[in-house]
């Protein structure tokens, strides 16, 4: 008996191809819109490692920090963005961003567990620096809400990546892996710090 083809594969192909066709026409201006906002935190290594590190550290700290840090980060980061958009300068922005990778990476590497308020304060302080940099770079031609939404979602997803990586601690050898990831983040942070100060 000849096997009937399920309608799913063609539908799946159409579903996969359709968004590509739509996006191809959606945004000719690379500085604007959802795609640019989504790519912004992902394509900057300094931002990327720090966002993942927040999730990693949350996993090391465990609940409630596990969800509190990623919950608090986006609004505080946006507050930094708001300051930038209002024209308020933040001295040492690049240094602050580099320090965020270095400090949080070291926290993960050495599995440091400060009190929750202190952990939140550290993360919130760095969030302001990251947000300020993002806000200052928000392109004038971009659709602000698309850009902001995508940028916040991408940041949140990076936290989630960090949390999921951090969950590897449950497995044998996972703890060492997470500490290694922390060391990597710290090294990247250090590299950016040297560049910022140099």
């Amino acid at each position, binding site marked *: 008996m000849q096997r009937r083809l399920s309608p799913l594969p063609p539908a799946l192909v159409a579903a996969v191809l359709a968004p590509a066709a739509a996006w191809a026409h959606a945004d000719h201006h690379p500085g604007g819109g959802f795609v640019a906002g989504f790519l912004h935190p992902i394509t900057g290594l300094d931002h990327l490692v720090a966002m993942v590190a927040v999730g990693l550290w949350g996993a090391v700290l465990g609940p409630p920090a596990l*969800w509190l840090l*990623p*919950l*608090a980060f*986006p*609004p505080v*980061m*946006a*507050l930094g*963005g*708001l*300051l*930038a*958009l*209002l*024209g308020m300068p933040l001295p040492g922005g690049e240094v602050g961003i580099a320090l965020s990778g270095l400090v949080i990476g070291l926290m993960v590497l050495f599995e440091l567990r400060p009190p929750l308020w202190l952990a939140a304060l550290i993360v919130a302080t760095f969030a302001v620096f990251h947000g300020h940099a993002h*806000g200052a770079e*928000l392109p*004038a*031609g971009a*659709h*602000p*809400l*698309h*850009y*902001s*939404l995508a*940028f*916040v*979602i991408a940041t*949140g997803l990076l936290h989630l990546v960090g949390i999921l990586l951090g969950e590897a601690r449950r497995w044998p050898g996972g703890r060492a892996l997470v500490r290694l990831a922390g060391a990597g983040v710290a090294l990247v942070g250090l590299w950016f710090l040297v560049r910022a100060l140099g």
Partner: protein
Amino acid sequence: MSGSGPTAMLWSPLGSLPLAHLVPTGLGPWGDGMARLVLQPLDLLLLLALVLLALQSGRPWLDRLALMLPLGWLVGGLGGLIVGVELPLALPCAAIVTAMGVLVTLGPVLRLGERLGERLLLTAAAGLPLLFGLVAGSSLAGHGGALPALLGEAVAIAVVTALLLMALDPPHPRWLALGLRVVGSWIAASGLLMLGWLSRHPL
């Protein structure tokens, strides 16, 4: 979308303005209106925040929300069409969305559902869509096919609200309850950035 002469010259820059008007999708005014919910997502964020707040409050008026939200928005939108002049309320709307996001984020901690009371929540669920609809309607007023576009967006709002309420029917497992609060924090963050952008580039 109207076509020729000065109107056509005006259309192109208007299409790129934030919060404004209709983006042509090729599906006619009805489809443009439906797409507006996603392409100009301030209404979508309000909708999401209201649904999440309602879900967190645990009140028995979730079913009413599915009707109140699109209906309130549509009535406001019709009012906006009658007003006929674009209302400069983008900044207050962004501030409201930000505040709603904060409420969703902090809601369970502060036990807002109990503190705010059903009457206040109901007033918000009815009044805010009315305001946002008014703003949307007023921004569409100058366009050809404004009424079908408005109806299209109202239908999209009704469908999305119903789907969200259906998919997120309480009680929630702990991870989902936390996830909803994270969405609230994302709404608040987006609203804050929007506020900053609007302060720098007033419409």
